[in-house]
């Protein structure tokens, strides 16, 4: 039981206690902020699979976040308008059911990650960053110029989607769903890191020649990591769209990709709770500094500079020191 374990437990406790207090004190806005932080943390936890474990600096994760958002928007808008999504040989109806939307979001964003990965993993370093950025921009401009789903104006959903047995319109119940997803993904990340796949992926990042020499293909390992990563970030996108009851091309913008990277870097790359620490910190800054000045991102920039210069392991690394290999 070391320092990082305690810090993680404290963060998790905070994610339970603070919204709990907000219910008691009747502060729905705080719950909304917490939900936002948890969803960002989920998106960043997805990126952490590719960036932290795989060493893949993807500047295109907004693609998956946005695809998840649009998966929700498209399915829900057809459901609320009573129009079929596809009516040909067979018929696909829209839906307001969260489990179906989540599945659609994870599958479509995972497929997109596979497609992008197949093409971009031929490169590495700065070229990989540029190619993922290029795919991001393509998706962004595609969404802007596609009038069927709102184009530049985005797409509004009147009522939040439903989950069997829960009232998702109640902020704390929706928050509970998001937190459950975050916990599940963090559990999966912790397992993944110590799994056979995790070892092979970590080695592919550090010594690809060695991985080939023992009979494994580093590119395939990284492709699978990217697909898992994209699927998780896509799921976060669906939740984010549901939180706002709105999806727009801005979810696909490269600024969004940058923000997801910032969550991971501020919190600590490859640290289990790095995405959580980063996203919570970001949302708190956004709220407090945003209340002081419209130019709050200047301060965020300074913080980011400090973290990168003085704490290579992000917030988690600053508090707990360098991580140790676990075997």
């Amino acid at each position, binding site marked *: 039981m070391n320092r990082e374990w305690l810090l993680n437990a404290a963060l998790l406790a905070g994610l339970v206690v603070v919204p709990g207090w907000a219910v008691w004190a009747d502060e729905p806005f705080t719950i909304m902020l917490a939900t936002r932080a948890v969803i960002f943390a989920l998106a960043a936890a997805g990126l952490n699979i590719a960036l932290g474990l795989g060493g893949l600096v993807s500047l295109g994760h907004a693609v998956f976040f946005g695809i998840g958002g649009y998966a929700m928007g498209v399915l829900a808008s057809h459901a609320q308008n009573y129009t079929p999504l596809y009516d040909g040989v067979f018929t696909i109806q829209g839906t307001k059911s969260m489990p179906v939307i989540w599945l659609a979001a994870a599958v479509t964003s995972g497929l997109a990650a596979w497609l992008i990965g197949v093409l971009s993993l031929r490169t590495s370093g700065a070229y990989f960053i540029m190619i993922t950025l290029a795919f991001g921009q393509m998706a962004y401009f595609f969404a802007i110029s596609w009038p069927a789903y709102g184009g530049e104006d985005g797409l509004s959903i009147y009522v939040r989607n439903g989950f069997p047995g829960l009232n998702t319109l109640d902020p704390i119940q929706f928050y509970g769903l998001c937190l459950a997803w975050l916990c599940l993904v963090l559990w999966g990340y912790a397992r993944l890191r110590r799994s*056979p796949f995790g070892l*092979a992926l*970590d080695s592919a990042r550090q010594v690809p*020649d*060695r991985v080939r*020499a*023992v*009979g494994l293909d580093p590119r395939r390992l990284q492709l699978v990591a990217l697909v898992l990563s994209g699927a998780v970030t896509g799921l976060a996108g669906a939740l984010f769209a549901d939180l706002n009851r709105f999806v727009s091309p801005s979810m696909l913008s490269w600024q969004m990709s940058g923000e997801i990277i910032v969550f991971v870097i501020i919190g600590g790359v490859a640290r289990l709770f790095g995405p959580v620490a980063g996203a919570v910190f970001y949302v708190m800054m956004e709220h407090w500094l945003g209340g002081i000045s419209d130019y709050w991102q200047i301060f965020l920039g300074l913080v980011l500079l400090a973290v990168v210069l003085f704490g290579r392991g992000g917030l988690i690394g600053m508090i707990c020191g360098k991580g140790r290999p676990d*075997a």
Partner: protein
Amino acid sequence: MPDSVLSTHELHKAFGALRASEGISIRLLHGEIHAIIGPNGAGKSTLIAQICGSLRPDSGRVTFLGRDVTALPTEARARMGLARTFQTSALAMDQTVMQNVLLGALGASGRPWRFLSRVARDAGLRDTAEAALLETGLQDLARLRTAELSHGQRRQLEVAVALTQAPRAFVMDEPMAGLGAEGSRHLTGFLDRLRTRAPILLVEHDMDAVFALADRITVLVYGRVIATGSVEDIRADPLVRDAYLGDGA
């Protein structure tokens, strides 16, 4: 040629005007240590790269276990049992010693697509990994970070990883590089015992080690084989003395 485990046939490789391999044909036989020697720039690394699969020859063939593997990628050759060690250690420095050998065992098992089970709790992989550490004398260092190992220990770990791969042939690229006299002697004794496991194609600059270990030696100069034979043959060969060994040898 039923006895040859690994062989090359008329390998040619040129980089622009530089002919790095000019019709290289060598054979690695069962139970032998076959050393490749030659001055810097003789094309040893290019030859290794073509044998292991990271470089495609312009023409010629590489045969392993009776199969033409010229078109196969590195990882496919490795899965057949071609185990190599690197000239400059290719080890994951942030991982423990144990994790490095586990990776070798994992590659040999061919089952990396397991996402939720603990790799360190996989009894099969662990047994293979621990046996390799025991054999190379690294068993007490298993939990150490690889970055904390001495240079000599890293050279041993290179060999340990190769041992986990169910090897049918070893290709070792200067395993003695950077070792002191003591370390070199130690590793020489170890490789000597290893030849019963699988034959070794040994590229090495340390002539004491080569003469102590090799059953046969091939001398490479400017991309050509100028001589192949037993240690005595090579020592006596006037062409080799002239080109490489110098008069003192």
